[in-house]
């Protein structure tokens, strides 16, 4: 077993050496170095294209999905090896996608064979970019109160309503969307629909964030026709799919929190801030804060590894991704507070060459959403209290 794993590691290393261009081993320079795929996608460089295409051919955009759906059919242990080997050379992710992180796992669990073959292959090859239509102006944390309505017209639904905070809705090709199909049943009156964002009656309006970017939109549906076969799971049982998907979303968000950038905060600033004669960071209070943060980071990294080992082998509590999401996102927000403190007045620059157009200030502001998107920290704590600690009335 572990012999096989060692030879898999050697093969993977050689494959990465041959296929991952040097440029794709450098850290992302900005958010738009990320490749999201889709109809409107363009590659930023030949290296990005070569890396993406090599991964698609090998099934490495979704290494643990079955081969017939575009994956490489790797086991959990092999996927871990691939992840470790990619991290070792700082390989960029070839494809970022809500299809991979969110819709894919839901389809693998709830989809029909036909849906899996069709949609999963599209996702694996980066052909269709998906967005997530859950939140509405009146339904955020209390998502199940959503009002967007699909009227049954025999062979199709006619959908009317509004979504909000739809990340990349203006760039996406298709949407997976929660739509009420039975007004008399709160939990069992929602259908998980899939439809084309180019359908007549869909419009999007970008929202400007405090980071100065507009990654998300208000999304309006005005008599949008959705064919009756474009839903996942069962009609009126979309809430089950939505919840399952949220589990994966939280797992993904927390896995990001536990990812490669979970490194010492103090070590990063030792150079720019300077060390005193005793070899200590030249600001004793900031040093102490960074040291406390580092303890939490290294501890959380151990938690990330344990969570993954347990999750992949079915040992984890099914609600533990909520705990991971809470802890990981709160930690990431703390990191960026320290980044700002460590950068001093340089970190304030918003528009300058040296600051790469305010990269750290914008990143700092962006992290504030970590504990809101995909379920707020308070909601995560509610879920942990109820489902893991079994506290009453929660």
């Amino acid at each position, binding site marked *: 077993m572990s012999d096989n794993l060692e030879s898999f590691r050697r093969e993977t290393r050689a494959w990465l050496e041959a296929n991952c261009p040097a440029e794709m081993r450098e850290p992302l320079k900005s958010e738009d170095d990320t490749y999201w795929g889709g109809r409107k996608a363009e590659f930023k460089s030949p290296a990005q294209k070569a890396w993406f295409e090599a991964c698609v051919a090998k099934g490495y955009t979704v290494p643990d999905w079955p081969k017939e759906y575009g994956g490489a059919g790797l086991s959990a242990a092999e996927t871990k090896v691939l992840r470790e080997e990619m991290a070792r050379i700082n390989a960029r992710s070839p494809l970022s996608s809500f299809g991979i992180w969110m819709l894919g796992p839901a389809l693998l669990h709830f989809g029909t064979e036909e849906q899996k073959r069709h949609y999963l292959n599209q996702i694996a090859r980066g052909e269709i970019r998906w967005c997530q239509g859950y939140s509405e102006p009146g339904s955020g944390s209390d998502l199940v109160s959503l009002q967007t309505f699909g009227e049954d017209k025999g062979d199709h639904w006619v959908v009317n309503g509004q979504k909000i905070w739809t990340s990349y809705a203006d760039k996406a090709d298709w949407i997976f969307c929660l739509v009420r199909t039975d007004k008399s049943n709160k939990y069992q009156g929602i259908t998980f629909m899939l439809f084309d964002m180019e359908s007549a009656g869909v419009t999007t309006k970008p929202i400007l964030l405090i980071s100065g970017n507009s990654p998300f939109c208000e999304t309006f549906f005005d008599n949008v026709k959705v064919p009756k076969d474009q839903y996942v799971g069962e009609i009126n049982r979309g809430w089950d799919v939505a919840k399952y998907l949220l589990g994966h979303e939280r797992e993904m968000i927390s896995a990001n929190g536990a990812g490669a950038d979970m490194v010492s905060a103090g070590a990063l600033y*030792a150079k720019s801030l300077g060390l005193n004669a005793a070899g200590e960071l030249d600001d004793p209070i900031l040093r102490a804060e960074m040291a406390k943060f*580092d303890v*939490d980071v290294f*501890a959380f990294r151990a938690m990330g590894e344990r969570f993954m080992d347990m999750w992949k082998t079915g040992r984890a509590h099914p609600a533990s991704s909520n705990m991971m999401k809470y*802890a990981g996102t709160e930690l990431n927000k703390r990191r960026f507070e320290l980044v700002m403190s460590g950068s001093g007045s340089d970190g304030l620059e918003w528009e300058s060459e040296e600051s790469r157009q305010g990269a750290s200030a914008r990143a700092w502001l962006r992290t504030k959403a970590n504990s809101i998107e995909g379920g707020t920290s308070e909601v995560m704590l509610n879920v*942990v*209290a109820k489902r893991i600690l079994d*506290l009453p*009335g*929660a």
Partner: protein
Amino acid sequence: MPMYHTDDQAMLKDSASPFIAEAGPVAHLRSLRDSNDPTGFSRDLWKQFAEMGFTGILVPEDKGGLGLGHVEAGIVLEEIGRNLTPSPFLTTAVAAASALKAAGGAVADEWLPRIAAGDAVIALAIDESQRHRPERVALKAERSGNGFRLSGTKTFVLNGHVADMLLVAARTAGAAGEESGITLFAVPRDAAGLSADPRRLVDSSIASKLTLDGVEVTADAVVGEVDAGWSALKPLLAAARTGASAELLGVGQGAMDMTMTYLKQRKQFGRLIGEFQSLQHRAAHLYSEMEIARSCVMKAQQLLDEGNDGAELMVSVAKAKVGQTTNLAVREGVQMHGGIGMTDEYDIGLYMKRDRALAEFMGDVNYHTDRVARMNGY
């Protein structure tokens, strides 16, 4: 190594957990305390630990032990922590055993089998001031004949008044603050010039201030090499710190479990207090911290067992993180119990006391947080 217990480790837990709950529950601590027991722990229970194989976990098989690792020792320690069982397990079977195993030689041949058999209690005489600063060891050991003559004082020596042997860190060369020049000695309890002044601590354990007034030992008493005692002290400290973290984790888990039970029993305003969201959120936060603490303790144990270079960092991460977390668990525990949490009759306060003592042992949260910064170059 995956970060969950193997089947064998799970079996060990399944036997250790009910055994310690039965033989060393909180009531056992209370009875020793209330009878003002002068030893501070039960020698009978120590013998039973040996019969269960616990005392030999870290002792090599050719020395009469089981030849297992820190993960296994941690399983027993967590149960000791959960039950607040007074026991010399951490100092003797974990810390001293690790130092002797690393040092080898005649002194290891003599003491390791006795540890495994439950025939020896060993105390650690390292600290010299109220703050744990092992590299600042100053207690003097001068050459005398073909042996050494030790003079100085030690403090916070748990079980020092009843130990069969004391591991004494002394300076044979160099200056306080240097790792080299330290030598570790195995000093028998009846050595002339050795006196112990025992004090009962807040958690009812008994620690001594030691005075060594020209204590003569032979060269055979040296554990490891002269002037290079750090190479035996380093594994001792790593084992003691990781072990203390595991025991502390048990203390935190025990306090948290008690508190969760109480939240589901106590009613106010016509509702169970566990229905109040302010308490739910604090409970959920505590759970999250406990899981993270548990993870880094396991990681430290695994890295030590692998002999991985990354172990030292993770050991300090673990001691610092569990220190914070168990402290949170006992403070929240007392607060969420209301008035009853302040009574001697109720157990939660005993958890608070043990937390404080274990947190101080072998470096507190601040000491290890600082060490993490140093190991990362700032």
